[in-house]
């Protein structure tokens, strides 16, 4: 088992290397760099520096170096958490990104918890009450939830908040609490701004997990060992919880790994729409200003999050399902 984990982690290293090269190339694709973009922006409003200053700045920050050298300078710092210098924020990339990365992971984790906490119980309910009103309603809702993307849900939520409720539902706190000292009211307000993005990020995946849980459990309930258990006179509750659900839940682990990219994608878009401190808003800004190291690092981080999620799913799956050979 340990060797399996070690091997999986070691494979990540060359993969990461290739991905970092591709990331760097993509980020360098737009013509010009941070200073020429800034210069063009300032020139539009009549300001800006001369060519000479721009060239001097490029030299100072190493932007005149050949690309391969810039690339190696960039990756050489990785082990020291040095991801380059963000010119847009005038701070090291790590200092800019760390908070937002933590918030993204926090939000993503909460939505994964939400997904599991909601989809499994309602999946069990639907499967054990097949074709009942509750099941039909849940299945219909599940289908809608599956097709409405988080980006749209976030827009609708903002719309409802402003037009119907008359409050600003964006950000992590209401206006009057920003910068205020900690209090019970502030904590409640924080929670009030936390659950909508968690639900929005998790909704589509919840619907997906619910559908899979329902059909898995229905399959399992039709199997002979369940009939045998019932025939022995086992209590129905035990049949469902100890026998059927335990088997039906296994495939959900790999399905959850497939849902992680959706959550990451949604966290970027929803973060921008709802003005949350996820990686989304700073990524968008860094792309617009050609803040290459910041943009590259965020692109890399989102990819790494995806890879780590897959890795965890594989390991967990290997742990719970003895049929998977891991040597």
């Amino acid at each position, binding site marked *: 088992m340990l060797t399996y984990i070690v091997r999986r982690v070691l494979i990540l290293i060359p993969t990461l290397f290739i991905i970092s090269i591709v*990331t760097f190339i993509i980020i360098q694709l737009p013509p010009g760099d941070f200073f020429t973009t800034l210069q063009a922006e300032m020139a539009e409003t009549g300001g800006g520096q001369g060519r000479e200053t721009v060239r001097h700045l490029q030299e100072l920050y190493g932007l005149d170096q050949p690309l391969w050298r810039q690339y190696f300078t960039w990756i050489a710092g990785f082990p020291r958490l040095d991801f380059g210098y963000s010119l847009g924020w005038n701070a090291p990339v790590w200092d800019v990104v760390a908070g937002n990365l933590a918030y993204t992971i926090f939000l993503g984790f909460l939505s994964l918890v939400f997904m599991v906490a909601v989809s499994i119980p309602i999946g069990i309910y639907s499967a054990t009450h097949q074709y009942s009103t509750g099941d039909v309603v849940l299945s219909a809702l599940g289908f*809608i939830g*599956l097709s*409405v993307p988080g980006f749209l849900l976030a*827009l609708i939520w903002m719309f409802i908040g*402003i*037009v119907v409720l008359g409050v600003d539902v964006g950000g992590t706190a209401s206006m009057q609490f920003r910068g205020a000292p900690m209090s019970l009211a502030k904590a409640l307000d924080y929670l009030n701004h936390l659950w909508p993005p968690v639900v929005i990020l998790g909704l589509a995946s919840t619907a997906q997990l619910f559908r899979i849980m329902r059909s898995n459990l229905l399959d399992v309930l039709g199997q002979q060992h369940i009939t045998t258990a019932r025939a022995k006179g086992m209590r129905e509750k035990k049949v469902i919880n100890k026998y059927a659900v335990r088997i039906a839940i296994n495939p959900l682990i790999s399905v959850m790994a497939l849902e992680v990219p959706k959550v990451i994608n949604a966290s970027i*878009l929803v973060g921008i729409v709802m003005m949350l401190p996820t990686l989304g808003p700073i990524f968008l800004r860094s792309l617009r200003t050609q803040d290459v190291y910041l943009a590259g690092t965020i*692109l890399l981080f989102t*990819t790494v999050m995806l890879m780590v999620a897959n890795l965890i799913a594989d390991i967990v799956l290997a742990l719970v399902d003895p049929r998977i050979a891991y040597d």
Partner: protein
Amino acid sequence: MQTIWERWTSLDSKKKSKEIVGQYEKLAETLGYQSAEELESDVEAGKVPETEYGLSQWRLIWKKFARNRAAIVGGVIIGIYYLVAIFGNFIAPYGLTTRSRDHIHMPPQRVRMVHEGSLHRPFVYGTIRELDEDFRLTYELDTDRVYPIRFFTQGDRYRLFGLFETDVHLFGVDDGGVVALLGTDRQGRDLFSRIILGSQVSLSIGLVGVLFSLFLGTILGIVSGYFGKWVDDLIQRLIELIRSFPSISLWMALSAAVPQHWSVMQTYFAITIILSLIGWTWLARQLRGSVLALRNVDYVLAARLSGANHRWVIFRHLIPATAGHIIVVSTLSMPAMILAETSLSFLGLGLRPPVTSWGVLIQEAQNFQTIAHYPWLFLPAAFMAVAILAFSYLGDGLRDAIDPYTI
């Protein structure tokens, strides 16, 4: 071999064995009948061909699809959307940039039928603009001015399908009045017209993007499954590499690389290609799987042994055999494509004004303070939501009908 039908008709009703009745009932169900009797009466009336499962595969698929009501509704909605988009310039009463300085941020107008207590042909009232105490524009109805809605009126000049220059619009009102069924935006442009003209861009980008990823995905997927070995390895590693990035971040990074100074057409195609760059991997994976299974099927082997070349086998056997798959996957990719364009344009990374798509329209309404006062500016999102739901239902119905065992 005797068909079920022949066996059925060769027996009189008393001798019909349980087994045959069972098969016949199954056939009736497959064909969409409530009972075997109903099928029999139809057969006697000469409505059903008298062979076993007398219908081709595609007819069977259609039968199954037609029973799925949600999918039919979805399909009809999509049909209407595309029809409206095709005749968009004709249906929209105004052009994309036609603005009326006297009607800025005007709320949606109601089409009325009753004027001063008596029935009237459909009309809209004129409006009087006022500034309220917050210096916001408000509009009062001016019940003295009646603008009947006229059909086939003359308005802005445009080219229908980009070919025929004309100025006839489906409907409009006389000079002096405006008809803004869904209100106007901050420049006094009619939102209804803009949504319809925007759907031309949004829906066509979905279509072109899917076609492009279909092209890449079909070729690379089939080649990968058919030739195997290092070709397969290479293509699969490429797919893995592309898919290891979360799609939104990759899309954002790539579309940020589209130079600002590119022309409208160049941007449009660049964005479409960027969107298909990820879309094709899904199709390629699916097709590779089916081709791997098909490669050793008898009729493909027979074709190879009879000396058919690769092109013949691929185009005559493999592509037709996987056609159902291709249709399902491309229908299901459409909403994702449209949504991706909308989100990119919304972020300001995709299409930019003067090109108008749903995403651009939503982006113009992005300021939520504006939305609080002028909620109708959010209507493009509703149009997009309906399109996406309709596409999902249609795709799901197609999948159930064509390919019930996959995905």
